[in-house]
């Protein structure tokens, strides 16, 4: 599997939100303004990559040698939760400007299923460490792409007159459906 295919497949063909149904809560919840969307997207790329790399090591050097693979779920979520706490504390002390722009998104990421999802997918596909890192950066970028595009659409929709019942979440979901239909065109390009 060459790395270029891996990247294209993760961003476009198997887009984490629009084709794999992961991370939908923040996708709908933080796509009201593009500024917020960019912040959330960057936070996901950052945390997902670190989480996937660390959980890969945990699985390889702890769970598999001790025959504890069935504890994967509980170990991974605890690793991600502590990682998020740690990153938050580190950014606050060391890089205050970055904390200011990303900090508020970090607590939301513990329950973002895209992060845990990416870590588990890497294990199920039996990626190497390098493949894991590349795949998680690309998947995070795919998440960010979908999020920013949806936010831009929704900013315009705010100016349109739509029936009261459709306003807000329902219309956002239908827009997401149309975007997903557009991304469907990539199917078969790479797997």
């Amino acid at each position: 599997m060459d790395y270029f295919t891996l990247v294209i497949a993760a961003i476009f063909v198997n887009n984490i939100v629009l084709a794999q149904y992961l991370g939908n809560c923040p996708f709908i919840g933080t796509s009201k303004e593009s500024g917020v969307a960019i912040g959330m997207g960057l936070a996901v790329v950052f945390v997902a990559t670190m989480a996937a790399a660390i959980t890969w090591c945990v699985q390889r050097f702890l769970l598999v040698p001790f025959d504890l693979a069935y504890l994967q779920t509980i170990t991974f979520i605890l690793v991600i939760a502590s990682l998020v706490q740690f990153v938050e504390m580190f950014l606050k002390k060391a890089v205050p400007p970055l904390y200011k722009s990303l900090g508020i998104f970090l607590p939301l990421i513990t329950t973002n299923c895209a992060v845990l999802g990416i870590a588990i997918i890497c294990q199920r596909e039996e990626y190497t460490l390098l493949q894991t890192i590349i795949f998680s950066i690309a998947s995070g970028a795919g998440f960010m792409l979908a999020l920013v595009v949806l936010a831009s659409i929704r900013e315009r929709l705010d100016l349109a007159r739509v029936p009261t019942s459709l306003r807000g979440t329902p219309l956002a979901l239908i827009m997401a459906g149309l975007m997903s239909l557009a991304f469907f065109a990539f199917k078969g390009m790479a797997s």
Partner: protein
Amino acid sequence: MNRLWKEFSKGLWKDLPPFKIVLGLCPVLAVTKTAYNGLGMGLAVIFVLTLSNLLVSLLRKAIPAKVRIACFIVVAASLVVCVELLMQAYAYPLYLQLGIFVPLIVVNCIILGRAEAFASKNPTHLAVADGLGMGIGFALSLTFLGSVREMFGYGTWFGMELAGDWYEPFAFMIEAPGAFVCLGLVLAGMNALTNWQRRTRGLEAIEGPIHDCKTCGLCATKPRI
């Protein structure tokens, strides 16, 4: 008794997840290709949610406030691992169908949200009623959505043939775009129903429930976006 019924029944209509409280969208979209898958995921969520509410409520006085989220996560994750093992042992084909979304129950906002917002503040019997009600509401919603998508997408219901050979399955419904559009339309229908009821009572129409991270109890404790 009255209170018990109130906490149980609110999950069935008034606060029905995920249609009235828009939470835990990933499994809602991902596993509702067929009614059977939706029901299977719903049953798993009933199991985890009821037991996690029970355990969190029992432990609520012992858990120090500062590490409560960590404790909730451990409780929920242990229950999810139990479900994973039981499903592999007794419903292996379903386990394969639901795939990655079985372990992902642990990050379903409903589980941690109910633990934080309700179970950690209420006595055990109410917490169980709340978990059971919310869980059943969630399972029914998933089965409903799965039924709609399966009927249009395959022309079947729980695998039973509904239409004759003349029916051309509408494949859009079982793919990802269909999931989004279908959920959007159901939410819009719910809003329309609410607004129709409000109008008959002479009230003004309102915008439906917004998907807001505030609805998930976890994030309510942190600064809002």
